[in-house]
């Protein structure tokens, strides 16, 4: 069997999604207070989880290609459109800071019972509709400054993939160290109790006491 198997079916989607949602919630990333705390630099879970995941999966993909298990260029790699991606990134960061979520974490939040995520989702539909409405005038900006197709950092910097990974590991280690330092100074990253808001936490406006018992 060669990989990737290019299965985009229902079972594939559900499996990948369930695992994705399970891991994100287990890390506390369904909590808008925990998520926004990253930008106040008092909780570095967003950075730590994201960077670690990127490094682990990048190492896996590069390793699979190096071992001859997976052909090079067989997975989708996005292409740079400098202005659209930079401004889009800024808007998503601003949206996360304001709304407390990003598209993926809003779905995680809904799974945990956080009804505010529904308003974020309504907003996303409106924002998408707005984009579609102004698509023609924005098109020039949208397609501007296109980089080489599927360009990787390895290609851009002229260094092998393992060297890029090594740099990312250094950035991650520094980020973990700096992040943990800031967290300690501010009383620690938000805990499960704090993000759930139980009797001791109490930072959540509960509509009704609806919780699921698992024994």
């Amino acid at each position, binding site marked *: 069997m060669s990989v990737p198997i290019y299965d985009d079916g229902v079972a594939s989607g559900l499996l990948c999604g369930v695992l994705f949602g399970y891991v994100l919630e287990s890390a506390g990333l369904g909590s808008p207070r925990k998520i926004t705390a990253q930008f106040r630099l008092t909780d570095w879970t967003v950075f730590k989880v994201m960077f670690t995941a990127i490094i682990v999966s990048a190492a896996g993909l590069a390793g699979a290609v190096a071992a001859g298990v997976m052909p090079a260029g067989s997975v989708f790699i996005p292409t740079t459109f400098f202005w659209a991606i930079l401004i*889009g990134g*800024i*808007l998503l960061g*601003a949206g996360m*800071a304001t709304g407390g979520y990003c598209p993926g974490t809003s779905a995680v939040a809904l799974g945990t019972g956080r009804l505010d995520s529904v308003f974020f989702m309504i907003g996303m539909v409106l924002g998408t509709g*707005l984009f579609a409405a102004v698509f023609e005038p924005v098109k020039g900006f949208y397609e501007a400054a296109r980089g080489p197709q599927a360009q990787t950092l390895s290609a851009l910097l002229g260094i092998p993939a393992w060297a890029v990974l090594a740099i990312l590991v250094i950035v991650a280690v520094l980020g973990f160290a700096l992040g943990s330092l800031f967290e300690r100074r501010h009383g620690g990253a938000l805990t499960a109790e704090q993000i759930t808001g*139980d009797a001791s936490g109490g930072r959540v406006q509960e509509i009704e006491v609806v*919780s699921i018992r698992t024994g």
Partner: protein
Amino acid sequence: MHPTIRPLWPPLVAGIALGLVLLMTFLITGHGLGASGFFTRLTAWFGGELIRPATEANSYLGPFLKTAAGPLANWVSWEIVGVMLGALLAAAGGGRFRLRVDGARNVGGASRMAFALAGGVLSGFGARLARGCTSGLGLSGGATLAVAAFLFLIGFFIGGIVIGYLVRKAWT
């Protein structure tokens, strides 16, 4: 009476687990995880239901209405359903499921909804502009070491930190 709240996974553990899930996704599908694509298709679907001629004529959303199965019949839709289910399972198992409005303590329910809506609008627009979001472009693109992903992440953290400082009273 609520069930016992179980501790969160340490970020390093969650990051490794997420990295493995992401790797598995690439090996199965040939692409990474995503999220904003679902909301694009949802918008196309709403447009198709409410103002079909205008949506069909729209150069961005129109193409999504061209398949017989409809705009929602796509891997990303099943994935997002999965994300909600997975989160529900984890939350329920961890004693962390609560039906509530989170983040309203400092600003009240109505302001929280307004902030959530505004944040959604910014994210929805931004994700279309970037052709992806934190999951699809940042995380999955990052796994392929794409330049686009890291450019996105730089913008994402700048935007988040600057606006985060301006709206800090809403969250603390």
